[in-house]
């Protein structure tokens, strides 16, 4: 459900499906959570996601809290219009570090 790459020393996790919702969130959370246990500085690439609901949002927030608690940081990139709209609706654009592209997010991680 995720693809993991190292880009210029930063771990980039791409959510591979198009949907992060109540049906997929537990599996995605488990897989990303495992990455966050061993990497402190992570970029989450959401560019393939075309639908996120509140359960999906909860996964991203749980990941953010996990990283922050370990002294790391989590950056998001590639938000599609639906995902960006949900973030704005719930004010989460004020909570996350959001970048337009993967390159921007990786550069900001350094």
């Amino acid at each position, binding site marked *: 459900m995720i693809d993991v790459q190292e880009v210029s020393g930063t771990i980039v996790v791409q959510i591979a499906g198009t*949907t992060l*919702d*109540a*049906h997929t969130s537990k599996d995605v959370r488990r897989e990303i959570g495992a990455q966050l246990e061993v990497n402190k500085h992570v970029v989450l690439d959401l560019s393939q996601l075309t*639908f996120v*609901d*509140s*359960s999906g*949002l*909860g*996964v991203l*927030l*749980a990941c*953010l*809290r996990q990283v922050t608690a370990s002294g790391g940081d989590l950056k998001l990139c590639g938000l599609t219009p*639906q995902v960006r*709209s*949900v973030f704005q*609706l*719930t*004010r*989460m654009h004020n*909570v*996350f570090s959001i970048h337009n592209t993967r390159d921007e997010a990786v550069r900001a991680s350094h």
Partner: protein
Amino acid sequence: MENKHHSDRCDDRQTLHRLTIAGDTSQLANMRQWLVSTIRCRCEFAASERLISDVELALQEAVVNVMAHAWEAGVQRPINLALSCDRATLRLDISYQGIAFEESAVPPPILDGSSDHGFGLFIMKQLMDEVRHGQHQDGQCFIRLEKKLNEQLER
């Protein structure tokens, strides 16, 4: 359980479309596909991408709330959906057997990132003009979601 759907024309202006889904999250994608295709085909005058996206997310949140809160652990029941639209309003009626949702018992969401749940009802209310939960005398619970179309048509 297979999804069942059918349509019947109520009058010259309003068409009713129904879908019954099993009460588990594997049905959500099919439900959203039904909603989007039905609005595009049958309520084409209202079918802006923004409206479709808003209604799709509101329905998702409502049905997920039912799946999460309406039944005891391990219980799944059918959820009935009905979509109707005329030039003024798009309406979704969700009905199910189970525990009625108590809106007043839901605290407002925390939007500062410190909590990762409690957004569903907030999202529904942000996206729709009316969100109403209740229970009929026969015990059937319902959720009504309405979106006024006048603003959409003027865009």
